[in-house]
């Protein structure tokens, strides 16, 4: 009945939605932030362990739909080992991809990472769901800015 939704709900998304990676709390995070989609009820709490300017560990807790959970899960995997500036670049690229389906300006610098995140590009055809995919990345930026509350409304 829903076969044409397999582009949006790829196996990778369903897998990360069901079994999110790094789904835990860091007891002594260097940075953290909460993200909230008030209209949806999606909420995440993001924890970052920093090694200088580099993200040594990233983990999250929270509740949300398959898209927001999978996006947060993939993000924590992707940003580990990146500098804050690289993570911000990824966030900008990801947002563009989520909104338009492509990222012509992404370049080759983080090709592998973007390839993996490409699984979420299907959301661009679902305007009301784009914010589900971008919530984790908004929260990441907020955490890196030293803030506490993010919203993708």
């Amino acid at each position: 009945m829903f076969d044409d939704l397999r582009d949006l709900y790829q196996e990778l998304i369903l897998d990360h939605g069901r079994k999110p990676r790094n789904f835990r709390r860091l007891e002594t995070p260097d940075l953290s932030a909460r993200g909230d989609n008030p209209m949806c009820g999606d909420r995440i709490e993001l924890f970052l362990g920093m090694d200088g300017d580099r993200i040594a560990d990233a983990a999250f807790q929270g509740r949300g739909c398959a898209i927001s959970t999978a996006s947060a899960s993939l993000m924590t995997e992707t940003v580990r080992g990146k500098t804050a500036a690289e993570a911000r670049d990824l966030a900008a690229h990801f947002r563009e991809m989520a909104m338009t389906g492509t990222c012509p300006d992404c370049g080759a610098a983080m090709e592998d990472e973007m390839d993996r995140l490409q699984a979420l590009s299907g959301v661009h055809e679902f305007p009301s769901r784009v914010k589900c995919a971008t919530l984790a990345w908004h929260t990441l930026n907020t955490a890196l800015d030293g803030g506490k509350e993010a919203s993708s409304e």
Partner: protein
Amino acid sequence: MDGSLRPALDVQRIRQDFPILSSKVHGKPLVFLDSGASAQKPRAVIDAMREMFETSYANVHRGAYQLSEASTAAYEAARAAVARFLNAGDAREVVFTSNSTAAINLVAHSFGRGVLKPGQAVVVSEMEHHANFVPWQMLAQDHGIELRIANVTDAGELDMADLEAKLADGKVGLVAITHMSNVLGTVTPAARIAALAHAHGAKVLFDGSQAAVHRRVDVRALDADFYVFTGHKLYGPTGIGVLWGRMELLDAMPPFMGGGDMISEVTREGFRAAPVPAKFEAGTPPIVEAVGLHAAIDYVTAIGMEAIEAHERALVDHAMAKLSTIEGLTVIGRAQDRGGVFSFALGNAHAHDLSTLLDRVGIAVRAGRHCAEPLHVRIGHDSTCRASFGMYTTHEEIDFLAEALTSARRFFS
């Protein structure tokens, strides 16, 4: 009862009156199950509004020319129609607002700040829409009013014993409760609530946004003090809502917004407010919207609120039977007396994922917290999907919803 042997109303004929119902979504026939958020419009409403724009539109209560007089007559005829619809004793007790939210805010400001005294209390329930929650929180913050929240039972009924306990000390000046929950479908025992409130010296306001669509409302039989509803859920246009209030209460209340039409006299030193209802209708009102609401009321009245209620009761029974067969599906709320609003959660499928799936096969449902966040905390769900029925909803649409939910469960398993 012979009502069960024949259809309460001819739903296929009714569907032909709603142009949008023959449209397609993603190439599939539209199955519109979000009437609780806003209902679709019959041609009678669309035509009445277009005709007014084309033939008799002008501002009301101002010009001494033919068009303005025609416009004023149409606007006041809409007020009279609302009064008949609610069985109000006096059309002047009907105040037009922009929606239910505006009507409740009017009462919270004017009655809340102008009549209630600091130290008094207002009681709402756990199942209120934010529109009947936040205005009272604002009143509590601004005016020293205590806000009390009556419990909802696990079955989704208003806990009458708890309501009585919250009234016991006699400090409550107003009970503001939904007449039908927009999440649980629960129809509250309004006449009993009113009697209980009055016995403890409190006035009572009912939020009829959902109830007025599904049941005949008689404000005098309920012994209500205030009753609010909105046009767009009653198959009418957006931008028009109704506050009905007892004349002696409206008379005693200060104006809410200031401006044109709400005054008798303005001098450099001050103003004298116009009598009710003009006192509460500052500025150019939603004229064409009032005419659209009038057409909507005529439309549902011609079909008959009893026939609509009987049809929806049959739909509710059918939906309860159908949905209860779906493995992993939890219907939120099991009130004895309920209307055609079903919120549900399906195992491991999140409400938003579910609504995206349902949309793909043409089914429009709402997902989220339905402007009732405290209730979602109470029921322990971050978000739910909600299917809500209108008079045009068919048994076959409910069957299709059940089929799609079964399929969605497999998709996410």
